[in-house]
């Protein structure tokens, strides 16, 4: 196995990018994870998707590419991120041992930077000088604008008009970083509509432009590429857990919107059958109200944004608008690999309501001095419930996928601060 050596030591290998069949769960040649995934896109985009897939295949087997990615992760993104044990928070979780993977400490404040740096390098290899991206909470947009600034790429970010309003700080950050932010006023004015608009841009400008997809959804090869670039989260966490506790955790918890932070931490544990994988979707105001983003929990199999997966849809296949207090989880689709993990039973998915997430948000701040993103707070709320079920003997690893600075506006309103 080829290893990449940097002055700081050894971090990334081709296997860390899940390539070369090492994990035996890459999608097939058509991008299918079982019945999920594939490509449902206008024919005009097929050559571009083929080009991205072929270039990625070359890149992930290219030591020079791996070395450059590794270098950026260490010296720019701030990897490896640490684990933090949170005993005061754990007291509220039935006394379970709760350990956080601190993706909130990366540059730009969320795990999104991992994927973005990988894809920005890929963009340069593709010979393109313009990137476009969709964003919900704004974290992927900020990360993309950051990487574009770093590498001298033109950057256009599509963001639902509703999300622009609730994440105004991130809009300002993107602008400061030199990106053009285009508010999308169609449909629900949230993430799904931003994705539609980004696809429209891509099909028009595909010669010069890479669509820097932000989650593990979309047409093949995006679910695979984004997973591989996010996979470093779990690779590090698995090793760090062994160092810290001498054992693997009993469970790994992560929030699921599109699903990139969850797959990022789950993937390295998939073959560890004794490690339970728990994904937490946004339950919004509750399943019974219809105002939620419980795609895996309450959706049905369909096609959205180029991929067969679970979708919130009516009986005639019209997408149902999702709701969540967290813009990053407010999405009526989900990555096809999660659909596959759900159906195979390897991972379990649950709902966490707005109220439960906000309670966990405040609890972590007060007990540990860490303000989490509201997205990540769904995983924290899940860990609270799980810890109470499993008891004080349990060790639970939680992906703290981002920090909550961007959410202070929402928190001020919610808690009357």
């Amino acid at each position, binding site marked *: 196995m080829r290893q990449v050596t940097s002055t700081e030591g050894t971090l990334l290998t081709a296997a860390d990018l899940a390539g070369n069949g090492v994990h035996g769960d890459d999608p097939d040649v058509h991008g299918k994870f079982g019945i999920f995934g594939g490509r449902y896109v*206008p024919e*005009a985009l097929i050559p571009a998707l083929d080009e991205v897939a072929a270039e990625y295949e070359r890149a992930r087997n290219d030591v020079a590419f791996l070395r450059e990615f590794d270098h950026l992760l260490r010296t720019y993104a701030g990897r490896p991120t640490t684990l933090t044990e949170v005993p005061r928070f754990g007291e509220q979780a039935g006394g379970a041992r709760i350990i956080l993977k601190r993706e909130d400490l990366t540059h730009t404040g969320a795990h999104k930077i991992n994927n973005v740096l990988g894809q920005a390098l890929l963009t340069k290899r593709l010979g393109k000088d313009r990137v476009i991206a969709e964003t919900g909470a704004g974290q992927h947009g900020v990360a993309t604008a950051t990487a574009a600034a770093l590498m001298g790429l033109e950057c256009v970010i599509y963001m639902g008009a509703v999300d622009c309003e609730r994440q105004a700080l991130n809009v300002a950050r993107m602008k400061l970083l030199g990106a053009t932010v285009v508010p999308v006023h169609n*449909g629900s004015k949230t993430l799904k509509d931003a994705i539609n608009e980004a696809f429209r841009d891509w*099909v*028009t400008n595909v010669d010069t432009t890479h669509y820097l997809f932000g989650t593990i959804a979309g047409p093949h090869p995006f679910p695979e590429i984004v997973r591989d670039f996010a996979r470093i989260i779990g690779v590090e966490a698995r090793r760090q857990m062994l160092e810290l506790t001498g054992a693997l955790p009993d469970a790994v918890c992560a929030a699921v919107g599109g699903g990139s932070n969850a797959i990022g931490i789950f993937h390295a544990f998939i073959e560890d059958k004794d490690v339970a994988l728990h994904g937490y979707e946004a339950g919004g105001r509750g399943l019974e109200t219809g105002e939620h983003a419980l795609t895996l929990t309450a959706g049905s199999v369909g*096609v*959205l944004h180029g991929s067969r997966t679970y979708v919130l*849809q009516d009986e005639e296949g019209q997408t149902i608008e999702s709701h969540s207090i967290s813009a990053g989880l407010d999405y009526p689709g989900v990555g096809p690999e999660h659909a596959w993990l759900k159906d195979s039973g390897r991972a379990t998915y649950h709902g966490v309501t707005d109220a439960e997430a906000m309670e966990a948000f405040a609890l972590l701040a007060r007990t540990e001095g860490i303000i989490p993103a509201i997205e990540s707070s769904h995983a924290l709320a899940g860990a609270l419930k799980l810890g109470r079920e499993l008891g004080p003997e349990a060790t639970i690893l939680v992906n703290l996928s981002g920090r909550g600075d961007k959410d202070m506006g929402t928190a001020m309103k919610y808690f009357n601060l």
Partner: protein
Amino acid sequence: MTTLQTVFAKAKADGRAALVGYLPAGFPTKDGAIAAATAMVEAGCDVIEIGLPYSDPLMDGPTIQDAVHRALTNGTRIADVLRTVEGVAKTGAATLVMTYWNPIDRYGAERFARDLAAAGGVGTITPDLTPEESGLWRQASAEAGIDTVFLVAPSSTDERIKAVADCCTGFVYAASLMGVTGARESVSSAARGLVERTRVHTDLPVCVGLGVGTGKQAAEVAGYADGVIVGSAFIRRILDAPDEASGLAAVRELGAELAAGVRA
């Protein structure tokens, strides 16, 4: 020959290209769509594509997005789409449904093919269904006796063009440009080359859509393609009209201009 192929053969015998018009069901209203499509036929459209309004039309430009949004707001459902097809098919025009894949997937491929055929529809155009994923739909369509139409694009390799054309039975839809639907100042120069490259791989008619909106453009495209597809320009006339009657008059006027174009 299928109904659709007969239409193209007849146009060819007349020494002209066929005129294909697109309109979403439920736009401007459920009944208004039938009236407008009927006006399009009366003005000279040989083939009508009835759009199935979908919540996430990611290959459509602002005009069709607007029309589709209005149709969905009107409460347009698949039963209305089928009723629209039935109404338009009665005029004698070959009537297809153009739809993103998910509504068919959810409704059930066999059921949709059967219900469409029963309504008098002659086929479908499915712009986001790739050859790789189309097996189920082609089988269901063949069993119901309706045609399948898929798209090729200027970016398509010869290998892809062949794969797409092999899946088509009615005609091949050549997207004239890299972009979303909507009328343009001029028809992309890529269209002619794409039609020529497509003909290498199929004997089926090749129709050009995306960006065609005037009689002059229709005449230009008719010079090298078997059919000229116009959608957004018809919708624009309806959107811009102060009331339904003047909308219909504007549709007739554009239809006549385009019909003259394909005969020029």
